[in-house]
């Protein structure tokens, strides 16, 4: 996203003083909820909540952050009711929010409400307040210490603070509990109360500006009590669940000073004081916003001063007034719109604005596919001679050898994921290195087995070694089939072998691609396979590479891999047949080893992300794959570029993907020369452009040495400056409900240039009109990863929305006859293209 900060006095923004955006209700709403949480209102607004056409509750709100405004209801909600909210402020009344229909939680969570999470954890001695998350809005939440209730809130928010009395004592066992409609969730993870930080750190004041009414104080220990003074006068002592305290105050003035100390146990010293002073209004910065793309009807605010009023302008006319984190707009955004976003405080108007151009495609950052936390996790190890490993599963409580979760079992069999590590020192228990990922899968109701392949480590190599690993993986699958059929076993009747996923790392990745090819009919259906930094021994032996097919295939490729240097997973991706989709996740600054907690050496050929980031990447994309394919929710969207996950460095992650239901205009694999595309229709090159087909592989005949896939693609570059154009006929196609997908890369030579490359994609209609859109409007061509001695040309998928082009150029999208590509970099640097597809949306 290209955004800048500009001065508002130069813009001529036209305020709409009658505009007050609707708030929104945190959903989903469930039956038996005794409160709703409202967001997006302006500070001190009067909120109304309406149920089935009648206003049932009115409150004068405080501030929307940090947890929204909880609005108690006079009666519990009933499934089917229609609920909405609106706000009043300064004589204005907003429109009503979107309606939420009350649901029955047992439809979404048939095994019971999600288990609560103590957040933030852990729990300290003398802690006075605990945050609890992962809650269903309107439920009841309570805390126990050694089994006795110490705090409760009925009708909670999704993240709820609970004051505890008495304060925690050292060694107590603390858990959070929740129920809705008298349906109790499993309790939270248990925490043992431990001594808190001593000395306590000084609290830190976030920047404060003239007119601000809500101040943030951070570095607060979990459960501490914070005493705040303003200009030397005590404001009071406030309990805090930990992290940061957001405090409502009367408007502050330039130069005012604040101080704060925190304490846990009275017998321990308080922290040193932290101080802060108020800056003048002129220092108030512009807010930061999330990705914005055509069609958006809201703006996500990613950074703003607490309590600030947010205003949004589209092409200099105001279209939204609200607060962080989401402001709804009166008009949908169109690609190319100029948007300005400001924040202001009481008596402090905005002097700067965030300015951005609406992209054609720039997916939002939303959600975390690994965060589904429903069940406690049990674990155990299995061993039947050489068939051994570990297994994590949804259980009645956390811990070793716990019983299987009975409520979940009563609903039916659960899916299974089998993991296989790669080659490493046989002295290390490599199979234990994915326990974090196994835990994440088990929490969401998937049994996760990690096969001990150490008998094959250090003992040889080649295609035979990979076959042997596949054999061992199938042994473990059969072992669990036997357990499933064994009366009295932990897994008796629990496992659904019609929903099986595989994950393999390194040689394990090679093996899990082999398993579906050799397994035969053993009553197992593989729905998805994740190959993490896989080897490809068949390729190295001069044999054909396995083409993953019949299941969803995904591969994670670490760009700084110092072991599998050629990122051979790209060969599997190129050969894969979408079933119904296939995905490649290329991660800059990632190494081979850090995904496995038992593999300690840093093999990265450049500085790499922290180990924890590697683990997050496997968790996030692995859970997206297995949730989407084994649990049937929409998480696969994270692998298809339509939404980005939170909590991973997405700017360093390049995705490529293909889906089954697409019409391929050209994949260059037809052996019919560059002059004819995959539809059998002609292509032409004009204006001094060079275009031809080359193997994207480490073979003679490749365009250069930088291609590490296993396919044929097109290389295109401008021989001379000018308006060169590559045209590929499609026949008459209706693009009103389709996108154009294209894999593209900046071709690497010996060095990587300081700036990137760009191109335009054009659509030509039957009347000969051509409308163009630049690659920058859809995210731009990703830069190559600078890998010492061996930078790669690694293709990523860009998605083009034809409506971004059609409106401007007055194209008739019902009759598009050709697609054009033209470089716009202004030099002769080549592009690699492949997989030009039309995709229904």
């Amino acid at each position, binding site marked *: 996203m290209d955004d800048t900060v500009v001065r508002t006095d130069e813009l001529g923004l036209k305020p709409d003083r009658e505009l007050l955006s609707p708030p929104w209700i945190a959903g989903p709403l469930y039956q038996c909820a005794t409160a709703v949480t409202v967001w997006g209102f302006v500070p001190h607004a009067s909120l109304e909540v309406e149920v089935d056409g009648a206003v049932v509750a009115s409150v004068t709100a405080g501030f929307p952050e940090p947890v929204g405004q909880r609005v108690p209801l006079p009666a519990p909600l009933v499934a089917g009711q229609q609920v909405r909210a609106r706000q009043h402020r300064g004589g204005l009344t907003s429109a009503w929010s979107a309606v939420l229909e009350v649901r029955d939680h047992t439809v979404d969570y048939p095994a019971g409400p999600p288990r609560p999470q103590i957040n933030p954890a852990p729990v300290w001695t003398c802690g006075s307040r605990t945050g609890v998350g992962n809650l269903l809005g309107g439920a009841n939440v309570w805390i126990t210490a050694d089994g006795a209730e110490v705090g409760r809130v009925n009708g909670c928010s999704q993240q709820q603070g609970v004051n505890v009395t008495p304060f925690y004592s050292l060694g107590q066992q603390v858990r959070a509990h929740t129920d809705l409609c008298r349906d109790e969730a499993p309790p939270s993870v248990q925490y043992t109360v431990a001594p808190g930080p001593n000395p306590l750190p000084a609290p830190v004041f976030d920047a404060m500006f003239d007119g601000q009414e809500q101040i943030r104080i951070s570095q607060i220990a979990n459960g501490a009590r914070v005493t705040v003074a303003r200009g030397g006068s005590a404001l009071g002592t406030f309990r805090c669940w930990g992290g940061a305290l957001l405090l409502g105050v009367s408007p502050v003035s330039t130069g005012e000073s604040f101080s704060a100390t925190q304490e846990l146990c009275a017998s321990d010293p308080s922290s040193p004081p932290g101080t802060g002073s108020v800056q003048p209004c002129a220092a108030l910065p512009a807010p930061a916003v999330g990705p914005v793309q055509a069609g958006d009807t809201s703006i996500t605010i990613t950074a703003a001063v607490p309590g600030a009023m947010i205003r949004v302008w589209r092409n200099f006319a105001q279209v939204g007034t609200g607060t962080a984190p989401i402001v709804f707009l009166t008009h949908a955004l169109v690609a190319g719109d100029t948007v300005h976003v400001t924040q202001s405080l009481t008596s402090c108007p905005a002097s700067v604005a965030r300015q951005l151009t609406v992209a054609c495609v720039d997916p939002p950052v939303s959600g975390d596919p690994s965060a589904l936390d429903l069940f406690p996790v049990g674990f155990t190890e299995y061993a039947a001679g050489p068939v051994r490993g570990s297994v994590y599963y949804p259980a009645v409580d956390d811990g070793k050898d716990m019983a299987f979760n009975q409520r979940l079992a009563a609903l039916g069999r659960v899916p299974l994921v089998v993991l296989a590590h*790669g*080659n*490493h*020192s*046989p002295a290390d228990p490599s199979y234990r290195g994915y326990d974090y990922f196994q835990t994440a899968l088990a929490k969401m109701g998937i049994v996760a087995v990690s096969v001990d392949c150490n008998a094959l*480590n*250090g*003992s*040889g*190599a*080649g*295609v*035979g*070694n990979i*076959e*042997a690993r*596949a*054999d061992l993986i*199938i*042994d473990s699958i*059969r072992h669990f089939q036997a357990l499933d059929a064994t009366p009295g076993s932990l897994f008796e009747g629990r496992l659904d072998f019609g929903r099986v996923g595989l994950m393999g790392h*390194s*040689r394990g990745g090679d093996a899990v691609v082999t398993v579906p090819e*050799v*397994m*035969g009919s*053993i009553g197992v259906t593989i729905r998805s396979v994740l190959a993490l*930094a896989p*080897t490809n*021994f068949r*390729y*190295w*032996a*001069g044999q054909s590479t396995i083409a993953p097919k019949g299941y969803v295939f995904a591969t994670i490729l670490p760009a700084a891999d*110092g*072991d*599998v*240097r*050629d990122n*051979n997973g790209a060969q599997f991706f190129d050969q894969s047949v979408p079933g119904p989709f296939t995905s490649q996740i290329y991660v800059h600054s990632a190494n*081979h*080893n850090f995904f496995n907690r038992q593999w*300690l*050496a*840093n*093999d*990265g050929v450049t500085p790499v992300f922290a180990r924890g980031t590697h683990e997050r990447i496997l968790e996030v994309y692995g859970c997206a794959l297995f949730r989407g394919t084994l649990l049937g929710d929409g998480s696969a969207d994270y692998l298809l570029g339509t939404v980005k996950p939170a909590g991973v460095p997405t700017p360093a992650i390049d995705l490529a993907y293909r889906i089954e239901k697409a019409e391929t205009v050209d994949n260059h694999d037809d052996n019919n020369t560059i002059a004819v595309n995959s539809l059998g229709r002609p292509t032409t090159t004009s204006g001094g452009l060079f275009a031809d087909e080359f193997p994207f592989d*480490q073979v003679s005949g490749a365009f250069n040495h930088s291609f590490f896939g296993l396919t044929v693609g097109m290389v295109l570059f401008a021989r001379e400056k000018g308006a060169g154009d590559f045209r590929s006929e499609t026949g008459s196609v209706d693009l009103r409900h389709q996108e154009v997908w294209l894999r593209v890369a900046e071709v690497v030579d010996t060095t990587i240039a300081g700036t990137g490359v760009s191109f335009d994609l054009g659509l030509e209609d039957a009347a000969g009109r051509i409308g163009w859109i630049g690659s920058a409007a859809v995210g731009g061509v990703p830069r190559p990863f600078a890998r010492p001695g061996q930078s790669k040309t690694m293709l990523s998928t860009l998605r083009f929305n034809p409506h971004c082009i059609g409106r401007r150029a007055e194209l008739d999208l019902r009759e598009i006859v050709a697609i054009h590509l033209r470089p716009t970099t202004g030099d002769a640097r080549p592009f690699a293209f492949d997989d030009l597809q039309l995709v229904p949306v």
Partner: protein
Amino acid sequence: MTSDPGARERRRKPHHALPRVVSVQQRPARFDPPKRRNFDSRLPALESTVEFLVETEAPIPVRALAPVIYVGETPVTEVVVDDDTHYRFLALRPDDLREGDPVTLGWSGAPAEERVDTGTRYQR
């Protein structure tokens, strides 16, 4: 509060250097595909092939990639470890091996310039 300029951590890199080759012997061999428990091996049965017995000065490091004998540019990728310094490489495509080609040791997929010269040449 004091400030620290920090100290860049020296990373513990894995050791991937190939050891010097002490000797290479070759001998005729027969290859019977291993019996798998759950499927039939896709490896070919070979009545007559060649096996390379390689002694190294030190153990070959354990990593994802595998040691490979190259006869010219033809890889011999199936390898069994006898002990820390003795390895047996078996050719699955013996007809591709050319008399007189140099025998080198490298990692899977490694370019020629990264391979270790064994000082021997292939003899049928």
